[in-house]
């Protein structure tokens, strides 16, 4: 049984990799299995975790849960063409709640805290900081400031303003290049993991 599982896993692994060459029946088969099994997996876990676990078990204690169930039911009215427009109600409920919830969330964590963190001395008392730190601090302050200038929408990027915006986009480009380079290592680790599976677990080529 365990042996069979190993072969199934290897078959599917190679099926996905065959896509790198080009689309082919082996990939299509793996894809079809992937879609069917995973969609089924999600329905089942959603049903047991959310519907059974949260609503069915909890609605006695917390009658508010009925609100969710009613909204969910309204959603299904789409299937009845004549009153399908009612399904916009739960949709607008979700949109309103998402907008309200995230607005304050992003406000405090993305704006307030980041601004606060940027306020730091360029050099310490009596210039105690090393040249390395001073340069670093100046770079962070200048980079953040000019990056924000780049995002300004209501002013043409011209003159001194345009030059600052240019510096801003340079910083953003360095950020992107650096994060890209930094991620390569972890991506390779994933492949090493799969190769290990193929060569050692499946084929037994290495101990």
């Amino acid at each position: 049984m365990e042996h069979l599982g190993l072969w199934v896993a290897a078959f599917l692994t190679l099926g996905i990799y065959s896509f790198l060459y080009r689309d082919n029946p082996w990939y299509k088969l793996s894809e079809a299995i992937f879609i069917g099994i995973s969609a089924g997996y999600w329905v089942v876990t959603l049903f047991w975790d959310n519907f059974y676990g949260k609503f069915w078990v909890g609605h006695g204690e917390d009658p508010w849960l009925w609100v969710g169930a009613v909204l969910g039911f309204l959603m299904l009215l789409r299937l009845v063409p004549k009153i399908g427009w009612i399904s916009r109600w739960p949709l607008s409920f979700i949109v309103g709640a998402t907008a309200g919830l995230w607005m304050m969330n992003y406000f405090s964590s993305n704006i307030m805290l980041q601004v606060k963190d940027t306020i730091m001395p360029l050099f310490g008392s009596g210039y105690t900081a090393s040249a390395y730190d001073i340069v670093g601090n100046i770079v962070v302050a200048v980079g953040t400031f000019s990056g924000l200038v780049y995002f300004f929408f209501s002013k043409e990027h011209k003159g001194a303003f345009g030059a600052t915006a240019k510096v801003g986009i340079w910083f953003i480009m360095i950020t992107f290049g650096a994060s890209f380079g930094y991620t390569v290592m972890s991506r390779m680790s994933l492949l090493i993991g799969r190769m290990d599976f193929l060569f050692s677990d499946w084929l037994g080529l290495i101990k």
Partner: protein
Amino acid sequence: MSIGKLSTGPTVLFLASLLIGLIISSMTSGLLAQSVIGTGDATDSVLVEVPGVAPATSLVAEEHKYDNGNSIDLYWVPSIDDQPEGGLVRAYHLYRSDNEAEATKIAELLPGANQYRDETVTPDNKYVYHIIAISDGASAKSIKTAPISPHREWLNYDKKYLFLIALIISAAVIFFVETAKRGKKLFIRKIAGLEAIDDAVGRATEMGRPILFIPGILDMDDVQTLAGLTILGRISRVIADYDCKIYAPVSRSLVMTAARETIKASYQAAGRPDAYSDDMVTYMTDEQFGYVAAVDGVMVRERPATVFLLGAFFAESLILAETGNSVGAIQIAGTARPAQLPFFIAACDFTLIGEELFAASAYLSGEPMQLGSLKGQDIGKAIAMVVIVAGVFAITIGEAWDVGFMHDLVRWLSDIFSTK
């Protein structure tokens, strides 16, 4: 009902409620600041003297400010026998009695502890606390606190600055929306990725190939998905005009429903409701990589001329973008997840960086009201920039030459911008 009227109502309502909130919060702040404090009552000194160890002293129970009445802060001075070296105290046991019932142990604390927050209280019940210092074979009980009952409070005054700054930025957004509504022309610079949309749709039409739209892999409870869908609305309007084919495979059922509504309305607005079909949006699977496998399949088989990737993306960003690139599609991407932006920058033709994703639908609409909101955003940016410059300047001068009022300024700024 016309657009103007419909949005004036809510605007006024919103502003009015913000204003009332602010007034109430400033009026009640003085009242709220006086919190109830129960201190140790000297007459109630039921000291159980077990020789060998001294009790903790000055136990104070204090209501935690600005909460729902569900926490009480406790402070005390540790036992004099609780010393770093050679101390006798091994632990502190904290006891509480609810509404004059028998006291029960609610926490065990390490030596050296001098405070605790009890978050298991309910409003308007009466609580009395005492603490017992435990040592080997001996223990000492502190005096009891006076009865304290936590109260529910209606405003969190600690968040006043958060409220104030949110109010200023929201007011700026609303002000410019209103200004624009009155017909004042507002300048908004060109955004490269968005200028390209028309060309990208035109190209698909010429080539007779479909357009693929991916609204990210998260559900409707993520704000990036909403941004993606609002852009979908604008794009499908153009698509309907050009009579080109659009296909949006999605990974969430709710997104499927919302995307259908969005495209349908755009086709109606373009005067071509007959050209719309539910098949334009299909659900694939909720599973992240299962969805990626499906979309990759769609890409190589349908060979879209243009691919839009707008929404919340995770590791799959690069898989999708590279596959799209391999079939020769023009790709316009955008996300607010900083970790994935580098991959879009590398693999797509145009990328909307963070804020631009949220600005896109306003920009594309070309409506003055929507453009006004972008102008309001810029006010927020200006505030952030001024604070950064002033803050860095003040803290540097303050640190380097030890200037008193600069220290004060910095303390004040970081007080405002810490959100507690």
